[in-house]
């Protein structure tokens, strides 16, 4: 059966962009996939509840940013519960090696659903709390990619990139210090907030106070990525706050992440 194949390949891989009430980065995320050759489809979590969609017919899953369910209770919490309840196959989807990305609110949901950082175990080992500043903040940050990581989404990207963040509850915390060692060992730390010269510094370089400046996590296999910054907001060079000052950038670096996943499913 086609749907049991580890990676579902095609000329225009089908991308499931998950929506829930309050999701608000769905259109631009879908557009980014479309531009690099994917075939995005906006699917509401209520379609899963009504058993109207089959997850395994998709090559890629993206959980975009926003305020799912108003971020009531805690950011991404209700969505995480919904994913656990109605998208049980997502665990299998990840295990088969198919690309999954959670951005901002989607990252929070993946972590709270126990899908990151260790996709095998259902136990939640990380979480998010309010930014150290106590405020929602939107700003561009410098990020360092972990070149040792298996992450398929970031392969071939330069070690230092810039992306915008926009969140109020983005401080990543871990259940215990032991989990940080595990993350390092498994090369799960995909992205870290750094200063423009690549140092692990505090606010505002680390916009929320995340432990070890973690901005994004991947599973050890590298197919499932969650990150607080928004790659879909840097898909043309004119998204960069300094594009009127610089002339060398050809394209938004965020687009490369989407291209990586689509190419992975095309080859």
């Amino acid at each position, binding site marked *: 059966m086609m749907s049991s194949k580890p990676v579902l390949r095609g000329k225009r891989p089908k991308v499931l962009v998950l929506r829930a*009430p*309050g999701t*608000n980065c769905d*259109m631009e995320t879908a557009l980014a996939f479309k531009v690099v050759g994917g075939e995005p489809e906006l699917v509401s979590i209520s379609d899963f509840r009504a058993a109207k969609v089959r997850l395994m017919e998709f090559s890629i899953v993206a959980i975009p940013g926003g305020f799912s369910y*108003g971020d009531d209770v805690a950011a991404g919490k209700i969505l995480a519960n919904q994913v656990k309840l109605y998208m049980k196959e997502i665990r299998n989807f990840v295990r088969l090696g198919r690309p999954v990305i959670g951005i901002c609110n989607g990252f929070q949901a993946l972590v709270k659903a126990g899908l990151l950082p260790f996709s095998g175990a259902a136990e939640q080992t990380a979480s998010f709390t309010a930014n150290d500043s106590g405020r*929602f903040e*939107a700003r561009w940050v410098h990020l360092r990619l972990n070149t040792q990581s298996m992450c398929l989404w970031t392969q071939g990207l330069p070690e230092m990139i810039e992306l915008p963040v926009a969140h109020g509850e983005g401080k990543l915390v871990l259940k215990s210090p032991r989990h940080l060692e595990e993350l390092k060992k498994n090369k799960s730390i995909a992205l870290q907030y750094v200063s423009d010269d690549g140092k692990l510094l505090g606010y505002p370089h680390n916009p929320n106070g995340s432990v070890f400046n973690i901005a994004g996590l991947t599973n050890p296999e590298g197919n499932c990525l969650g990150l607080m910054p928004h790659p879909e*907001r840097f898909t043309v060079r004119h998204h960069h706050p300094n594009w*009127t000052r610089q002339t060398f950038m050809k394209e938004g670096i965020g687009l490369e992440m989407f291209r990586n996943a689509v190419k992975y499913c095309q080859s």
Partner: protein
Amino acid sequence: MTERRPAAAPNGKRATTAPVVPAARGQAPADEGLRFTTLPPKELKELNAKLGWSLNDVELEAIRAHFKKAGREPSRGEVETIAQTWSEHCKHKTFNGPVRYSDGKKSRVFRSLFAETIVKATKELSSPWCLSVFKDNAGIVQFGKGGRWALAVKVETHNHPCAVEPYGGAETGIGGVIRDVLGAGLGAKPVLNTDTFCLARPDYSGELPEGALHPVRTLRGVVAGVRDYGNRMGIPTAGGGLWFDDDYRLNPLVFCGTVGILPTWAVRKEVKPGDLIVAVGGPTGRDGLHGATFSSTTMDGETDRAAVQIGHPLNEKRVLDALMVARDRRLYRGVTDCGAGGFSSAIGELARDCGARVELEKAPLKCSDLEPWEIWLSEAQERMVLAVPPKSYPELERLFHAEGTGCSVLGEFTKTGRLVVTHKGARVADLDMGFLHDGMPRVERRAVWTEGSKPKRGPCGARGGPAVRGRLGSILTRMLAHLNVCSREWVIRQYDHEVQAGTVIKPLQGQRHDGPGDACVIWPVAATGDWEDRSGFAVGHGLNPSYGRVDPYWMALCCADEALRNLLCAGADISKASFLDNFCWASPEVPEQLGGLVRAALGCHDAAKGYGIPFISGKDSLYNQSRDEKGRELAIPGTLLITAVAPVPDITHSLTMDFKGPGNSLFLVGVTKDETGGSLLSQMEGCSGEVPKPDPKAAARSFKAVAEAISKKLVLSAHDLSDGGLGVALSEMAFSGEFGASIELDQILTSPAMLSDETILFSESPSRILLEVSPKDDLAVMRALKGVPARRIGSTTANPLIKVSGLDGSVVLETLLVELKAAWQKTLPELLK
């Protein structure tokens, strides 16, 4: 819903043909009914006050006469419906009404102030890009290439609710203006929010009357409200402003704007008899009763505070998402939002030209103990009303329910010309549409303008000599730290200004993304899905109540001038711009106050005609005055916000205001005059001068030349000169770009020829723009600016300081950029720690 529109002609056909109300046709009234027609005038007035209708004596008499003729008493629901439909908030009776104006020399009678100023200019201009003006819930203009798209633009105020509960007031204000845009045409997808606040200084230390909130709390509250609602709606908040003046301490102003995009086929709405009246969104509760009449009364201790709620952005997001799908499947023919007056005004408006039959028991409720008239008038947020052909209803209902939001049929549109509202068969209201919408008696108001006596202050900039020279740097530093100039980063960062991935020119600009941009540029690609189309638009603002204290006429022209320059500096095509007006004033029943308002409206007319830019939408909020701690009436300064929107044909050609490199030429466009009246300098130094007086025709020529230079890619950065004049603009460009500048004041074109260093540096003469140009393009720029007042005044430097040579050739100001920037950045964070 509450868009100001020109009233029907006072002696027009509809107003004189109001038929007699028929006797109740077998329906028992749903409430006890009122003893109204036989009540002595004094008792009628008492009833009016007790039930909070805010009707004036003439209106009460008109209603009495109407029902006397009908031979029956009105029900409570009927009087409530009329009171809210005729409220200042919905009918804008001052603006639409007759005004007898006198300025001491001349007098003039306006049959409708609005029609004879703002609307008149728009009509005469007849700009081809205007698709729908002063008709719908928002102004609608063309957008992009090929005529496929249009923009719906609306700016609202939500002042009274924000005074009593800033967080909830700002939330419901944003929610309301978003619904205005969702209810414009067949619904536009919001792609930008803007927010402008006028507040007392956060460090205000004077007394406040009982119950008034401290300005710092108001500031925190309104910022949090905009943040929590706008961010949750997924709409970038990327434009706006802040203005501080202690006379706003009892009546803060909160302006919320939204721009939406819609396909041109969806610009027109209609309603056909037989269409279902469908309510979507949240359930109805006892929320915000009397919001419309609430805004027509001055604020005092007895204010009806039931009007205030907090917002429910998730419910509005559900409505937005379902509505856009329903629109594109063409499941409905008409739509409008429930704003002030709730169902009564939404259905009353949609059914205006046909009629409606409404069964209120079908409305989903939050609580079961609502009186029928309360259901009808409730201002519960996050609701809209659609006109749906019966065959489309099942699909529409499925769609809204799948999104988790309400959808129910309340009745149908008819062709009876009557608004018939029942609850379980009992009559709540049975009103003639003609009387309801055009039966309001028009009261002539008196307006007086006397030119303010010149304050007893010395003239600005008159002093000279070395003592003043040494002070220029200190004045500049203090200006940058001034609340009306300083960095707004503390506010802007709390707003998600980049969601939808279309904010290509951001509110914070420069090397470290923290300089003050003139206008944002939006590329609505997530909404259009068209990756190849690089069409965008820019939004800018003009606001300066300080000029209005001198003369509201010149304030209006200056606001228009500044809004246009903001757009120009971002690279927009201002030859196809549009204006929106928002007036906030004290009581129009005070002739001197209304006189100022008339001056401002005349200014809007002359600005529109002079710059060739139409007004497409507007709102006014009056009665912004309250009793202060000593029982005196404290009026706000007359305030006009002009919002300008213009296309950016190719977003990759847009501009920012930060210096791009060292050794570039600086060109100053425009003439610097002795115009310091109302200026920042006059406020800080206690001096006075002439208020800035734009010459729109001459300014328009300058702007056209600058636009040409920009379109030829000859300009590296551009910034408008506003509060604090040249000194502030030059500093902002320098520290944002992290390059210094050296200028010579004797190179500046002034009028008269001899002005002091201080005046040249800080005069706020309008229509001026500072341009940075690569030296290789100097000649080309001079050619583009031929025939326009412009001079090369200096250059950018690698040395990180501002250096100004005075008229006598000596250095009169030399200050490090870090010092200037630190002063500019510290003010708000220190006050809001």
